[in-house]
């Protein structure tokens, strides 16, 4: 039999896969290169050395990790169709459990483990509420955030208060995971960095920031990003998990037990958020401190959406946030003021792109004038008021998102209730 009927029947849409923007390694490297160049240009002209200093980069990573881990947590559960706004609560559980485990067993890695378990417990609760009882995902998340706070306060009272150097709201100092450096290159790089040469010194600073005094926990966290990608996109487990977030009924019709996978996803999600919390109490600071998450769980959620529900993207979002947060905390007035110039250049570039590539004259004019305004502000002021430097990361995030108009694609069945046997 000839299949001609069917072959010609293939509608045109099927011939060319819609030319959606594909991120290749090459593009990625070019992007990073351009960014570094931009930074070093700005550094060069403004003299804001902190933009590319080893310290800033090191701080950036340290501040990005907890956000990134929370984001990964969000990714896991939302990929399985469960919205997780309880990340903050699970993170809080992680801060306590991390510190407690490390102290109890006098071993930081037991702390890491405990942190994961603590968060996972929160995740389990969320799974019971949303998957088994079909409760609205968001309210369950809110409740878990309240609970997480209360439970940790209670636990720290009954544990840390008794310990020497501890208190109701604070643990004694914890044993920290080991810190490592790439041997032999720290000194020479520091030397280079201090030369303040264009580009070279900047690269040296960035490299040194990434290779010296890095906690093993940080390395673990970074590895979790590719690992997540591999598991979710390359394994059978991951495919089934994602299918539960895209079309649970289809999964069900092929014998996949949707409940099981949703449970697994949400528990793992909690564990990751818990790791984020543990990082705060074990690495970012060396003790549990009540309220030390400071809303990072929500920022993690934002980072995940920023990354369009993909590991790489959310890592980028977390890094952007961590870097700008580091800058503003370290030498806000100066660095953030310098960033204004960078922003001006960036917007100007967009304007040119709009004009040349897209022939969108009107848009180009608007963007262009925006660039001019920003530059004017930069030129006319010599520092940014403290109140505003503190929100540099937030403003930057918004700026990036609005410049790069993105086609968000959340899992199709994200947040929708699912019941077995309700197939239509």
């Amino acid at each position, binding site marked *: 039999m000839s299949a001609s009927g069917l072959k010609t029947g293939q509608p045109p849409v099927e011939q060319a896969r819609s030319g959606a923007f594909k991120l290749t390694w090459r593009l990625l490297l070019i992007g990073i290169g351009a960014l570094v160049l931009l930074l070093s240009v700005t550094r060069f002209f403004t003299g804001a050395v902190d933009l590319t200093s080893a310290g800033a980069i090191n701080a950036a990573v340290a501040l990005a990790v907890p956000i990134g881990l929370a984001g990964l947590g969000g990714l896991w559960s939302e990929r399985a169709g469960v919205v997780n706004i309880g990340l903050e609560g699970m993170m809080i559980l992680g801060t306590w459990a991390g510190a407690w485990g490390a102290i109890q067993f006098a071993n930081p890695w037991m702390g890491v483990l405990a942190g994961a378990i603590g968060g996972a417990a929160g995740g389990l609760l969320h799974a019971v509420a949303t998957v088994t009882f079909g*409760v609205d995902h968001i309210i369950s998340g809110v409740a878990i955030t309240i609970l997480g706070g209360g439970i940790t306060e*209670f636990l720290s009272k009954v544990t840390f208060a008794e310990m020497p150097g501890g208190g109701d709201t604070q643990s004694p100092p914890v044993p920290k995971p080991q810190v490592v450096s790439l041997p032999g290159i720290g000194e020479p790089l520091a030397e280079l960095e201090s030369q303040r040469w264009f580009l070279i010194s900047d690269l040296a600073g960035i490299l040194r920031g990434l290779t010296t005094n890095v906690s093993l926990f940080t390395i673990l966290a970074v590895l979790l990003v590719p690992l997540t990608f591999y598991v979710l996109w390359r394994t059978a487990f991951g495919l089934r998990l994602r299918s539960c977030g895209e079309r649970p009924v289809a999964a069900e019709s092929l014998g996949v037990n949707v409940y099981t996978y949703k449970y697994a996803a949400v528990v793992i999600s909690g564990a990751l958020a818990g790791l984020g919390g543990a990082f705060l109490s074990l690495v970012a600071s060396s003790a549990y401190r009540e309220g030390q998450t400071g809303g990072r769980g929500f920022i993690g959620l934002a980072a995940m*959406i920023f990354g369009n529900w993909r590991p790489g993207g959310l890592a980028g979002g977390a890094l952007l946030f961590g870097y700008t947060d580091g800058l503003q905390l370290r030498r806000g007035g100066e660095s953030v003021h310098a960033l204004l110039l960078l922003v001006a250049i960036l917007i100007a570039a967009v304007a040119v792109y709009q004009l040349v590539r897209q022939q969108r004259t009107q848009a180009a004019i608007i963007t262009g004038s925006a660039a001019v305004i920003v530059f004017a502000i930069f030129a006319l002021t010599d520092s940014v008021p403290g109140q505003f430097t503190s929100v540099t990361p937030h403003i930057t995030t*918004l700026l990036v998102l609005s410049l790069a108009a993105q086609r968000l694609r959340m899992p199709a069945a994200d947040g929708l209730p699912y019941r077995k046997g309700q197939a239509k």
Partner: protein
Amino acid sequence: MNAAESSFTDRLLGRVRLEGLLPLAAPLLAVVFAGVITSIVLLVSGDPPLETLVAMADYGTQPRSIVLMLNYATTYYLAAIAVAIGFRMNLFNIGVDGQYRLAALVAAAVGGALTLPAPLHIALIILVAMLVGAGWASIAALLKVKRGVSEVISTIMLNAIATALGAWLLNKERLAVEIAGSNNIGTKPIAESGQVPGMAIIPGTELKVFGLIILAIAMGVLYHVLLNRTRFGFDLRATGRSESAAVASGVNVKKMVLIAMIMSGAAAGLIGMPQLLGSSYSYSLDFPTGLGFTGIAIALLGRNHPVGIAFGALLWAFLDTSSSILQLREVSPEIVRIMQGTIVLSVIIAYELVHRYQITAGQRRVSKELSGGTTPPRVEGASA
């Protein structure tokens, strides 16, 4: 079944459809369930469950506590309505928090700066608050419509930015004045003419209920009418239920997003008003915070339904007011928080359980009709 009655219960309990006594069963079961779970928590923490719960109930029913609850609930209700407007079309406005804080600050400053005849003065302050709230929300709305930025991110970020902006404004060079001998700092107190007197409607206490509880009630009615009785409301709900269907039916979704978000923001602007015009008369460092977050929980607790939200707000208010009495009874503050969390969870779970029961009940009813030898109801329906 009687259409009117069914649609009423339907509205009362959101999408849960219940016949007969079941509507009562839901809240009842919720209370019992919550009680049991909470008792467990208390046992674990070594507090006497029964006495503690009795004390809570006892305290919660005293005139003074009732006034406090009503005042809390007034604020919470407004917050939840603001959030619910967004939810009804799948917009998740986490930014209510920033919107109301900024709105209250600016409104307080304006209200303190000038004096007008009473009704005008109040009206102006409220108007300013709504405008500021709407304006701040419109940033997120525009970002979504023009640039496709998820409102979840943008509002999270805008909350932080509102904090910074507020801190910058709340400064002696700008909107704030020094409060003599205090480490606090706030806007110039609003004159008599701009204050809304409380109402002594609860006998047995000299404490007064916020005059603006009226505003909250009005907002509830407005919300209900607007969404369920008007064309605009229909379009909004349709968009929420199925964007594609709404588009095909001629709804301009982008416009709806814009309007809904701005309305949500305007409503958010009102959140601070009862407190500002009824109690503090000035926006200062100790102005209540985090109400947006509470609003999200309460809106969903009430299933985005005006009556449901009222119950949710009262429950939440009850839990908050009972915190002090519990501490006085040696229940530590963190246990109080744990109780709040568990109660919220158990209430919604109880609702789901009743919902499930209702489904099986429906199936049993059908099977009875079947054994009764009548033709399947589906056919009756067609001819009815």
